[in-house]
């Protein structure tokens, strides 16, 4: 039996999906213990109502600020930890999770395991996680009484069934002198002339293309298919394609009829942007590349051999 404190996430007035997944993971981990859910900042009452879900025992609201601020989160979670003495603290492995979870663990002096894809709790915590760009999976045993864990997005099903948790406003005094960063605004990354979210067919290129001048090859394939060209992140980082062509967690989420991934490994942050495609085709030299796990059609082969042949088929 372990009590768990999970921390919900929201942005610009909306709860993020990971909040509902944290409830699922938290309830599993807690077993017969209590699942506490913290909601920090924003419209906490509305969020509390939305998160009154099956498996949650108590919701603790902290009405402090409108948006995420890591200094506030670290203080509030630490105060809740003192008050509730949970065995585990559960957070999302999101961009904001990266910005506060390590400081929570450090300030509470408990070990941290990030990006969990599996959790097991019998007598001690065992976490499954990936290494080496998803080529290897590992299990990690926590050799301590308490721990902080962040869970990967979309690994646990979101909880949807309603429940009747107690909702309590947590009595919390913020130490303003320790708030040393201020969020001043948000900006959407500017759109260019091509909208990849609109395309029926995407030819998407990754680091397997090697050189900027080879991009012509995949552009030709896109032209032959009447498709639009998109890419993984490194292609945009290199400045070879503009940012609005990037598919993934920090780029666009696309749902075309066909997504043809050429020389893309299928990193989790990439998959987050394209797993909703109707048909996924993967062309990759590495038969173990994670992209094949979600592909409907696979070609294990060298793109420099396969793509020219494919173009020929459509000429």
């Amino acid at each position, binding site marked *: 039996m372990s009590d768990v404190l999970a921390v919900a996430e929201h*942005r610009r007035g909306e709860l993020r999906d990971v909040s509902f997944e944290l409830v699922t993971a938290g309830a599993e981990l807690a077993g017969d213990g209590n699942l506490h859910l913290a909601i920090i900042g924003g419209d906490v009452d509305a969020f509390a109502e939305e998160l009154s879900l099956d498996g949650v025992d108590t919701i603790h609201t902290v009405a402090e600020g409108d948006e995420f601020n890591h*200094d506030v989160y670290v203080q509030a979670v630490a105060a809740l930890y003192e008050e509730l003495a949970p065995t585990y603290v559960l957070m999302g492995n*999101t*961009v*904001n999770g*990266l910005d*506060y*979870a*390590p*400081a929570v*663990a*450090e*300030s509470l002096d408990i*070990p941290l395991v*990030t*990006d969990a894809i599996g959790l097991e709790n019998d007598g001690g915590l065992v976490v499954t996680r990936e*290494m*080496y*760009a998803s*080529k*290897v*999976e*590992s*299990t*990690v*045993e*926590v*050799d*301590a009484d308490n721990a902080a864990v962040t869970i990967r997005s979309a690994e646990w099903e979101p909880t949807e069934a309603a429940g009747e948790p107690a909702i309590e406003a947590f009595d919390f005094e913020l130490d303003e002198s320790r708030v*040393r*960063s201020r*969020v*001043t*605004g*948000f*900006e959407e990354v500017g759109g260019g002339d091509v909208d990849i979210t609109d395309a029926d*067919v995407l030819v998407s290129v990754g680091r397997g293309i090697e050189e900027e001048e080879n991009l012509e090859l995949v552009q030709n394939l896109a032209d032959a*298919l*009447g*498709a639009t060209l998109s890419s993984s*992140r*490194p292609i945009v980082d290199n400045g070879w394609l503009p940012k609005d062509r990037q598919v993934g*967690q*920090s780029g666009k989420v696309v749902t075309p*009829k*066909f997504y043809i991934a050429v020389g893309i490994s299928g990193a989790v942050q990439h998959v987050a942007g394209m797993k909703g495609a109707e*048909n996924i085709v993967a062309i990759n030299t590495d038969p*173990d590349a994670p992209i*094949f*796990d*979600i*592909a409907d*059609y*696979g070609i294990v*082969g060298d793109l420099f*051999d*396969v793509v020219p*042949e*494919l173009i020929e*088929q459509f000429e």
Partner: protein
Amino acid sequence: MKVLVTVKEVAEVEEDFELDGLHVAEQFLEYDLNEWDEYAVEEAVQIAEENDDVEVVSVTIGPERADETIRMALAKGVDRAIRVWDDALEDVDLLDVGAKTRLLSAVVEEEDPDIVLTGVQANDDSFGATGVSLASAIDFEWAAVVNALDLDADGGVANVRRELEGGVEELTEVDLPAVLSIQTGINEPRYASLRGIRQAQSKEIKPLSLSDLGLDASAVESQLVLTDMYEPQTESDAVYFEGEAADQAAELATVLRDAGVGAQ
């Protein structure tokens, strides 16, 4: 002003590899500078170019083998390097975030930097936590996943953009001193010039042991124990096209055409 940049040499696994207990067998590993750290190094060097009297120091936790990778950072403009290693680290399978934080905190105490740059994550174990954990330990402010940085050293703040999910960026003002974890794409990492490579040969890489840092073996005791490592079972139910490239392409073309793709 002093900028400390953390640099990790990471192992990349070759396409075909084998596991040897709790490790990938050594012959299937290739070592390289962590992708995210390349951008952190470039950002540090640009700070030095844009401001007067800036020293850029890199710090690595790693064995002597890492010197080759560290030299690349020195060739790109890092002034000098520190490499922390100790026999006590030799047998640790998984150095957890806490242990890395204790080592780097000791280096920060010694070097007293104004700003620390790290990569968002290391490509091997992908914890993505060292920078923010370090900030908490040394009582610096911080920001994670920074993809634009405008440093106002006189004003005592860094104006950053944090790259959130879904193409949204957060604009944040961070008080200095601070630790910033740098995202890929923030800049264009330079290639080392021949002159840079030559100069790097005479720059210092200072090895520091635990006792040099005033620590003992307890500092690297990990609270996480690696208990298993395996190749994930493929969940693929893809239809594979076999044969020569021409055959594979023909079969895929049939599927695409049947779905109305590329039909003239």
